[in-house]
């Protein structure tokens, strides 16, 4: 059986491959309500992550996330560079020094990442038409799974979280943006899906796919 570190690096490889493949989709979404660079930036960021995969295998679990986060923030630029970078770094911080976190530790860390991004975005809220519209429902679903349902199977937890994220992402279509560059379009941003929310869905989907295969 794989160690948690091996699984995490495997998930990061999946995420990288899938987000690089999504360049065109993201860029097209960002051209409607942003400046059309979301796909380019994300691709550049995860190409840089692919290059450090060997190094990731040699460091501590929490540092893997921090390292990925800084790499993204160094290479993407713009808003998504800061947001995704912050997310990974805070996730690393949220794991504290734990080398074998349990499911509650993981959900705590993911929630810590969510709070970090919201803070970084200037107190982003659900309904602002950003990646938070996908991420917050997903994290709420995870909390609900472990808290109320006492669910401990990560594949199930992720599957439900992914469903919530996708719903949240779809909902952004009907929203007028209140944060980020799309907010300058005001009402004219209605009718288009937020690209950052799609990034979140792809990240969760990649994690789910990988886990389903490996456990």
């Amino acid at each position, binding site marked *: 059986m794989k160690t948690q570190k091996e699984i995490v690096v495997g998930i990061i490889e999946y995420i990288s491959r899938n987000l690089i493949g999504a360049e065109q989709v993201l860029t097209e979404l960002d051209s409607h309500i942003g*400046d059309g660079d979301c796909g380019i930036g994300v691709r550049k960021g995860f190409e840089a992550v692919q290059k450090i995969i060997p190094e990731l295998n040699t460091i501590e679990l929490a540092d893997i996330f921090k390292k990925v986060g*800084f790499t993204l923030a*160094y290479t*993407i*630029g*713009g808003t998504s560079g*800061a947001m995704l970078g912050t997310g990974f770094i805070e996730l690393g911080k949220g794991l504290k020094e734990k080398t074998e976190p349990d499911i509650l530790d993981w959900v705590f860390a993911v929630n810590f990442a969510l709070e970090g991004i919201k803070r*970084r975005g200037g107190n982003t809220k659900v309904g602002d038409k950003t990646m938070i519209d996908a991420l917050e429902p997903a994290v709420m679903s995870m909390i609900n799974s472990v808290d109320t349902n006492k669910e401990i199977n990560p594949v199930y937890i992720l599957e439900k979280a992914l469903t919530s994220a996708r719903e949240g992402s779809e909902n952004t279509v009907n929203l007028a943006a209140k*944060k980020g*560059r799309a907010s300058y379009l005001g009402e004219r941003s209605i009718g288009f899906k937020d690209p950052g929310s799609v990034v979140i869905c792809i990240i969760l989907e990649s994690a789910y796919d990988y886990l389903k295969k490996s456990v």
Partner: protein
Amino acid sequence: MKKIMNLPENFVKEMLKGLAEAKPDTLGYIPEKRIIYRKDPFTNKVALISGSGSGHEPDQAFYVGKGMLDAACAGPIFAAPTLDSIVDAARLIDKGRGVLFLVKNYTGDRANFEMASEMIEFEGGPIVETAIINDDVAVKDSTFTAGRRGVAGAIFVYKIVGAKSEEGTNIDELKKLALDVNANVRTMGYALKSCTHPEKGSPTFELGTDEIELGVGLHGEPGRQRIKTERANVTISRLLDSIVSDLPFKPGCEVAMMINGLGGTPVSELYIACSIAHDILKAYGIKVFKSYVNNYCTSLDMEGCSISLLNLNEEFKHLLLMPADIPIRYF
């Protein structure tokens, strides 16, 4: 789209190279990080860094020099600079007295500067403080909740804080001064024609041949209102009314006035705006201490102008008049 350029993706790199080559004695340039910095070995001074997306030239790489900024981080066109650019610039330019970031209020810019600060703190780098600039009165009545945008008023912040920093003032006082200038400056602009992003190739927004956009943003964001063209008298009045009532600027007060071209408007028209603004301010009983009329903070080739008023005190006046040895100049 026609522009003086080679490949659109090299627009920013070639522009900064041109700047560095125009001022080889005073400016350093790190192409991979898009950093322009002061090369002279200044000491005992807090370092000032600003950064944002490119496309607002001369803001801000062209304000790097003794008496103004010490380094500038340029992002891609209309996109925040990357974290590493900011971190490297801060490490490079710090002289032991700390680094003050002067950041215009945009989500991407704030987020990247904030991360850079955390990263520098985490690594035990130089002391870092940030002052956020948000002088655009156009955003007030909108539903946007990213807050007021930072626009041309930022240049007054760079100038005044830059002059003060040369006196050896500490970082906390400089930050206070920056916020004080920001609290006293208000800006509003209008566009006659949209800008065209070189990589996009088509105008960011479309204005009819008889329309103007009041309160337009520096990236072509929509403004308060789209109206029919009218005599400049009337439009400049609208801008000044919004500005004056916002602070508010009171009769008898003394201001510095900036008539800022948005990139595609010739200085002749800016001076017509200047003439009109003088008349209107006289009627308000507001005294113009000094007028700044030129392209200070642009939006690529957008046509139009913004007006900024800075409510003055004796210290602001003194610092505005100090020399600034910046690369954007005539002689």
